[in-house]
């Protein structure tokens, strides 16, 4: 533990000394006195373990550490890009790694490790076996209870999520074909009835869909996103035509047909390309967080569906996507941080319960029918979920 973080940085000397005395007595840890220095960077066993990686050396400030949370502050004093690994005793199994440290920079590796024998390794130039040294972790009484099959849980989770993405893109393709057919045929009522319900399949997998930098603007650009001269295609072009603002000139039948065809083509292209995306646990964790960001900046403000006001459909779909990502990682998370898993359960449930009160028919009330108070309540539940959700990635890696 680090006592440094409890202290006001610029406290006057007298107050600081008193504070130290109290903390040292209360902590009663071995080496607690070593932490009672003026400097926040405390001794090697309390605070980060300092690693200095040069082009030919890897200096680790301590050879042992107590089990629990460990931080290695890895400084690159060499001329090449370096990386640092904490490996198993065999020097092969990766317990933790930090990559891409530019010359002169310091980056932290934070790991939770149980007692046992380990190996540290710097890899200047990111090549070869690295400069290795034995490292021992002693039993401090804090032993992380991690299943040996933890990685398997993560792999299963990412596979589940990949299947979910596949399923959603298939439904998106089918739905888009039906929407496009109705729209191109001038059956605007039918197109309107399919608009929001089809888009949910897009919104559920938005972080994956958005990863294709060329397709995202073609399919989901809002009018304000365009640059001068850029052709406007995709869902929101149709939205404006289906829910025209005052003074709007409707698209011609030919223009609608072109737009519809393009929408179907681009969606098929998207579906095809998602098949080859390789997902990892951090994609899921970050993707879930991004979906909540999307809600906070676009949906809860009513900006996404400026003409149709079907923002709550998108809202629910973003929550669905985030929840599936979380569910996929949950077995792994329960091993590493069961409290976070249960907090997320609760917060998801609270947000979904609130959303349910706005359900109407197969969908929701329109965004412009919400009162300011209702919007505030939703926003606050999004924040309440978004905050712990942002901890998910770090918790499972």
């Amino acid at each position: 533990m680090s006592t440094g973080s409890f202290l006001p940085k610029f406290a006057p000397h007298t107050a600081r000394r008193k504070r130290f005395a109290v903390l040292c007595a209360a902590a009663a840890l071995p080496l607690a006195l070593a932490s009672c220095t003026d400097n926040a960077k405390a001794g090697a066993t309390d605070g980060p373990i300092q690693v200095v990686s040069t082009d030919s050396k890897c200096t680790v400030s301590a050879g042992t550490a107590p089990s629990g949370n460990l931080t290695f502050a890895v400084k690159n004093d060499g001329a090449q890009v370096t990386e640092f690994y904490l490996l198993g005793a065999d020097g092969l199994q990766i317990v933790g790694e930090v990559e891409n440290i530019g010359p002169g920079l310091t980056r932290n590796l934070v790991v939770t490790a149980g007692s046992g024998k380990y190996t540290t390794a710097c890899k200047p130039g990111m090549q070869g076996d690295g400069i290795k040294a034995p490292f021992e972790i002693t039993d401090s009484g804090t032993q992380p209870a991690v299943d040996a099959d933890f990685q398997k849980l993560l792999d299963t989770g990412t596979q589940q999520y990949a299947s979910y993405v596949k399923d959603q893109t298939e439904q998106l393709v089918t739905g888009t074909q039906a929407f496009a057919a109705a729209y191109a045929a001038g059956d605007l009522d039918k197109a309107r009835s399919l608009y929001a319900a089809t888009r949910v399949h897009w919104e559920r997998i938005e972080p994956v869909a958005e990863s294709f930098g060329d397709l995202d603007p073609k399919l989901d650009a809002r009018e304000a996103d365009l640059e001068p001269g850029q052709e406007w295609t995709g869902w929101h072009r149709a939205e404006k035509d289906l829910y025209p603002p005052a003074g709007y000139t409707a698209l011609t039948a030919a223009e609608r047909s072109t737009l519809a065809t393009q929408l179907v083509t681009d969606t098929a292209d998207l579906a095809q390309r998602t098949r080859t995306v390789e997902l990892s646990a951090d994609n899921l964790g970050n993707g879930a967080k991004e979906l909540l960001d999307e809600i906070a900046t676009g949906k809860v403000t009513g900006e996404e569906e400026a003409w149709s006001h079907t923002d709550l459909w998108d809202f629910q779909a973003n929550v669905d996507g985030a929840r599936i990502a979380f569910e996929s990682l949950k077995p792994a998370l329960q091993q590493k941080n069961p409290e976070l898993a249960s907090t997320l359960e609760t917060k998801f449930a609270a947000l979904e319960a609130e959303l349910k009160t706005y359900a109407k028919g197969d969908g929701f009330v329109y965004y412009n029918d919400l009162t300011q108070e209702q919007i505030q309540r939703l926003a606050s539940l999004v924040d309440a979920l978004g905050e712990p959700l942002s901890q998910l990635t770090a918790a499972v890696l």
Partner: protein
Amino acid sequence: MSGCPFGGGEPAAGEKKRLSRRGLLYLAGAGGAGAAAGMAAGLLSHDAVAAAAATENPAASIVPFHGERQAGITTPAQERLHMAAFDLTTEDRTELIQLLKDWTAAAEAMTQGKATGSTGAFDGPYDAPPQDTGEAEGLAAGRLTLTLGFGAGMFEKNGKARFGLDGRRPDALIDLPHFPGDDLDPARSDGDIVVQACADDPQVAVHAIRNLARIGFGKARVRWSQLGFGRTSSTTRSQDTPRNLFGFKDGTSNVKAEDTDLLDQHIWATKGTRDTEAWMAGGSYLVSRRIRMHIEIWDRTSLREQEGLIGRNKNQGAPLSGGGEFTEPDFKLAGKGGTPLIPLDAHMRLAHASQNNGVKMLRRGYNYTDGSDGLGHLDAGLFFIAFVTDPRTHYVPMQMNMAKGDGLSLEYLKHTGSGLFAVPPGIKPGGFIGEGLFA
């Protein structure tokens, strides 16, 4: 006003640590009597600085008003901003010229730490309102600078020339294009005349705009105004690089006052190509953008992603390719899997001169917060201000690239206000702002 509003006396022991090496350079640069004020600057909070300086040496807090260039561009960036854009409500050329003369006189007085009008805040007739509003009485000049610029609306409105200024609008004073993602509020954009008031004391800056607005009543009306705190760039090498509301150092590669060649090349306007726009020679073009930052979602973003989005490390401000804060970034240096250490969509990469035909800007933006947005989130961000020689070459192409490709702009920023103004050259003693335009 009494010496120090925050109690003064001995600084707390811990605060001594804030006197950094760069702070010491600043002291050395200040020299002579100014050094005492500079010492105070290193030890006291920013708002206390102006006050302390006033008792030590009033002259140290005064930025000269007259000169070849307007103050407030290369002047070491002050801590506070109050910027206001005015719409002209008169159509009379003589009235406009008189307004500019009155504003010039008031600006000269206020930047010297004096009150406006001949009788100031206390010495006028008992039955008339005082000529100066009085809230800056007793405060030091606070290094107040007032920088004025003209918007397109001063030259023409609804397609018609105003004030006999037909043909005098400089070609570089374009209408900015729509940038992807812009969500501009007309009530926070444009304006016929802009006044940038910068000072180390917020009350001094607010007082200045308030009194100019008052002088302008009947001829000019405030269209929008913006308060800013915490400068987000350095305009001289004697200043530390400050941090923006994302917690990152901002303005590391800014053009500095010392870079005289770069200023000529990238900041000061030329006489243009037509005789009728030659009045801008030696001036500059001011771009203002109110950039809302999604603070809350940023705070939920991992340090890895934050650094990747910016392209620098958060602690020292060094480029991710390595080195220290002022090391030139190596955009080609690749890490694992051949991926560049500075991501392709990093803010710093897209803004860098090497990615923008070598163009540079002088930025002197400020953090702002206008309370909350009603959804429990800060309505806060960066009030971006930049000076360039020509926005067509020095702002538009870069901003277009940023708006399209910068991960930070796409996910965490929203431009909600915008303005472009022609800032005329400096004022000679006895002259008035923009005199050349009316010659």
